């Protein structure tokens, strides 16, 4: 039997799927052919290495992350999908206005780098505040995913007891304003996060909510991130 034929049957031989006559023929050949012997030993080593290859464990929170990514209709679930109703063009006066400029793309060199993606707002508890998040995009983005995580004791008006809201939306080039009517029910405040994802890239922005019982004036803050 030729070496080529032998090597074609080595897989079946190693799997124990050759009839006795075939096995005998290969055994005889291997005893006399150093080249096929080498191929046989290499295949054995290869199979052992493949069989014992360690599995990389999943990263912490994997299951929740992949499930959170699924769209959910408004209702019972902790994740809520809404049409992108809140994005409107231009700027408007709000009780508390926070202007956030973000890029999912490389930052233009003209933009300062020292600004962190964290802003602090001061609010009075048990009052409704319109907080504007303005996402400035350098280009049109289709089907971006926006996720808002609220701290305990902070609600979006009309979405009682819902800590996470997520939906898909389109961003146009320029400013895209999202108005969040926030109701802070405790003195504790907390951190609101807004995560925008698109094409495997994402950026998270944090809004540090500080309650201030003495705050009675409306504030406006404008900041680039």
């Amino acid at each position: 039997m030729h070496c080529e034929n032998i090597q074609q049957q080595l897989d079946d031989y190693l799997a124990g799927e050759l009839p006795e006559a075939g096995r005998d023929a290969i055994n005889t050949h291997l005893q006399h052919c150093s080249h096929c012997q080498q191929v046989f030993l290499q295949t054995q080593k290869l199979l052992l290495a493949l069989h014992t290859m360690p599995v990389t464990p999943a990263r912490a929170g994997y299951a929740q992350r992949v499930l959170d990514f699924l769209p959910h209709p408004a209702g019972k679930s902790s994740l809520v999908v809404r049409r992108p109703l809140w994005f409107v063009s231009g700027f408007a006066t709000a009780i508390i206005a926070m202007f956030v400029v973000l890029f999912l793309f490389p930052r233009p060199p003209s933009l300062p780098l020292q600004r962190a993606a964290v802003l602090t707002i001061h609010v009075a508890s048990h009052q409704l505040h319109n907080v504007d998040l303005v996402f400035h995009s350098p280009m049109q983005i289709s089907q971006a995913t926006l996720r808002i995580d609220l701290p305990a004791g902070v609600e979006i008006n009309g979405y009682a007891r819902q800590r996470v809201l997520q939906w898909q939306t389109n961003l146009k080039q320029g400013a895209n304003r999202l108005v969040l009517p926030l109701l802070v029910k405790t003195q504790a405040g907390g951190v609101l996060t807004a995560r925008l994802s698109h094409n495997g890239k994402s950026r998270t922005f944090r809004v540090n909510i500080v309650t201030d019982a003495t705050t009675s004036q409306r504030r406006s803050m404008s900041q680039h991130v």
Partner: protein
Amino acid sequence: MKKKLFSYFNRQQPQRFERQVRPHLESLHRYASRLTGHVTDAEDLVQELLLSLYRKNIDLDTLDKPDTWLLKSLYHQFIDFTRRQQRNPSRPNTDDLQNLLETMPDESARAEFLAEQQALQRGLQLALASLNPEQKALVVLHDMEGFTLNELATILDTPLGTLKSRLHRARQALRTQLFVEPFSESVRVTG
């Protein structure tokens, strides 16, 4: 009434889908990790698969063998995923693997056998990345995960003979990359 039912269905579908897929998430990650060779890509692959199944409103409870059905779906998703990555030269998998190799601890001094196995497995990661996705998936599922070729013929809807020859070529390619030295007798040019 119809609208009400539709609304009810929409509210129930996410919970039902999560309940159905949750028991399979671990094995899906395991296969995806083997197939992609990278933990982040594995997560992306599973995420893409789930999103695709969800949008198609797949009801796993109606399937006889949801685990093998999911494996088959993951396989097809992986083929698409790899083709997309190959079209996108900004994400070469081999770079990721190279990074992985550089950070892996070197325990080769402890025992010769372990050293050889480790070196082999490191080289194997790179060699696997060079296979075409169909070959790689077959090696992963057969040689690493232990599915028989007969099982895979059913799961992947592919003739047994095709799988056998695909596996033979894949192993041959891996052997060539792992064991053939650049100046060994078999490839040395004399004259």
